[in-house]
């Protein structure tokens, strides 16, 4: 693995190897007082975040630091980006300065692919930490890690992805990865939030959450971004919540074993009621903690490779 740009690029063996490494790291670090491994000592990892983000950036930073990498954070504000420097020049500069890996979050779909192209000759790896409406592969990996913990083997499991499919990079990455892992995915959203051409994704689409809930092993809620709410995609937050919000009554329709995922940040009261969010069922806190281990595993596979046995 030289780059991680898209969950679609992960075959079953690679995805399983990354998830197994993440589980191993989690077990190794569990209960340790000093959560620091020497694995990436001397490696330099740079995060380039062109969008506001707390959880993803912090998660990558902790992942790097727990493996003893030197982690440097660059954000669009307060850098040469503000002076009008192109993404290409910024990337080449950071690579030349010694980055072994850059982790990029960018509002343009395909930005990580472009970066990998520009850095192709340098040996600097690229991790896509979310590009526009395209993909967010480490989010899909941490979701899969969480699902595996709670449900075991994902083959034949049915996962509902609910909400703004159209604009969601989380949805795209999850559709790819869950299919690779053998799970069935059903997309649940109002028609205005389903992309044209979704037929090619080869997954069922439903407009009716209540009808789908009884058949699900997990329900994955997507964040509805504020700008979508005012973009005329649906009449009101209230109406969205009535049809697609996960509340206590809806929870009764879910099978006992089924779990609830949300990539965060949650819009309480709209996407998910506070009672549900704070109940035992959601795995949202596990998602955050698994995020660190999955990103450690990704950095490990990217920078050390599968041959290394430094764990």
């Amino acid at each position, binding site marked *: 693995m030289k780059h991680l740009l898209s969950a679609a690029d992960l075959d079953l063996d690679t995805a399983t190897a990354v998830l197994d490494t993440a589980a191993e790291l989690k077990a190794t670090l569990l209960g340790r007082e000093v959560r620091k491994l020497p694995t990436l000592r001397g490696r330099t990892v740079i995060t380039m975040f062109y969008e506001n983000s707390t959880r993803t950036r912090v998660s990558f930073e902790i992942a790097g630091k727990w493996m003893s990498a030197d982690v440097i954070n660059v954000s669009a504000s307060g850098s040469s980006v503000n002076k009008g420097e*192109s*993404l*290409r020049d910024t990337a080449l500069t950071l690579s030349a300065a010694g980055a072994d890996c850059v982790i990029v979050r*960018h*509002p*343009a*779909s*395909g*930005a990580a*692919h*472009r970066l990998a*192209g520009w850095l192709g000759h340098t040996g600097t790896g690229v991790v896509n930490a979310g*590009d*526009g*409406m*395209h*993909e967010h592969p480490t989010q899909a990996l941490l979701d899969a890690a969480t699902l595996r913990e709670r449900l075991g083997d994902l083959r034949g499991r049915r996962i509902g992805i609910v909400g703004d499919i159209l604009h969601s*990079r989380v949805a*795209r990455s999850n559709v790819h990865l869950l299919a690779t892992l053998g799970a069935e995915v059903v997309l649940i959203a109002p028609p205005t939030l389903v*992309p*044209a*051409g*979704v*037929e*090619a*994704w080869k997954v069922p689409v439903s407009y009716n959450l209540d009808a789908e809930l009884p058949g699900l092993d997990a329900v994955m809620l997507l964040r509805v971004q504020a700008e979508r709410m005012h973009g005329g995609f649906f009449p009101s937050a209230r109406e969205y919540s009535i049809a697609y919000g996960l509340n206590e009554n809806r929870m009764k329709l879910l099978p006992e074993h089924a779990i609830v995922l949300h990539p965060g940040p949650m819009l309480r009261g709209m996407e998910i009621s506070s009672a549900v969010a704070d109940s035992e069922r959601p795995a949202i806190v596990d998602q955050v903690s698994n995020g660190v281990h999955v990103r450690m595993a990704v950095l490990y596979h990217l920078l050390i490779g599968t041959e290394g046995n430094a764990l």
Partner: protein
Amino acid sequence: MSALLRGVLLYGEGDPVDVLVEDGVIARIGADLPAEGVEVIEAQGKVLLPGFVDLHTHLREPGREDTETIATGSAAAALGGYTAVFAMANTDPVADTQLVVEHVWRRGQEAGLVDVHPVGAVTVGLKGEKLAELGTMARSAAGVRVFSDDGHCVHDPLLMRRALEYSKALDAVIAQHAEEPRLTVGAQANEGEVASRLGLAGWPAVAEESIVARDCLLAKHTGGRLHVCHVSTTGTVDVLRWAKARGTGVSAEVTPHHLLLTDELLASYDPVNKVNPPLRTSVDVQALRAALAEGIVDCVATDHAPHAPQDKDCEWSSARPGMLGLQTALSVVAQTMVITELLDWRGVARVMSERPAQIAGLPDQGRPLAEGEPANLALVDPDARWTVRGADFASISDNTPFEGMELPARVVLTMLRGRITAHEGKVCG
């Protein structure tokens, strides 16, 4: 100056003949014409066509002379077999006044390689709010007969109605960039499977088709003349067929890139493939080829749109839309229409020269290959094969989606009113 083209095939048909050009006109056509005192050009087996006419180019001057000038764009046009090109109005300043259109016209005359006809803006500053002084531009030295806000759609139906109506007195045509702006907010790629996979905001076919349908109705209602720029969808072809059948004054163009390339290329996220309207599906490509062969789409226009490297070598959504086209148009048409036997060379003459000249009302372009006619000519080697290298183009800008492609057929000589403007890949200034 006199020149004798030896052994050419007129429209690629019949027996080889010699063509004698004297004083800017085709003086004689016949077998074994005498060669004394004239420049002889050996052209055995080459196809002679009327010089091409491009209704849609962006020559970037004034304003973006770092990407193209009227001189470099004229050179590219001559090398591509063109004897007349229409320079779109979206320059800086916009070509919405007599001053700017006369400047463009004069700069074209100074370059002297191709007739550069300025397109006048329909609305002041391309803002879509107020009609520009169409009459003044029409009566200027530039003699503007084609008006367009290309790059922007004249989306206000009342303004479009007025433009179609008013231009009747000027014997002019309104060339519409058909894009309903409310349906294409933030649009980056053809709405469909590829865009959904790549996470690019969709540019739906209906945004083009709804404007074309509306404008055809307005053209019929007003009796004005409408020209539809860069038709890109199957549905637009259907609308045009319907409108033409009911006697609407409408014509339409298709670009070479929409005849060859599809949105599958977007998977690389390389903005050399970014263009507006966007690359569509292979179904659309097939429909556009058939429509061009049938005459529902009248002609080929390049939408030649040079861009600086920094405006293309960036992330997709930041990149400017547009592609070079003047030096690849004939070869792409050969690849998509001639090799496929959808058009013969006479058909190529129709779609690249005769129809565009008629649409724009150019009396001395797109003329028959006959004695006494103006010698605006393109000589084509139908058997050539060449590999596209953007760096070799006459344009200042060099990025092209055709980079590295091997294409058939090549223009070997271009003649403007009897004067050779390009020969064997070299500009003759």
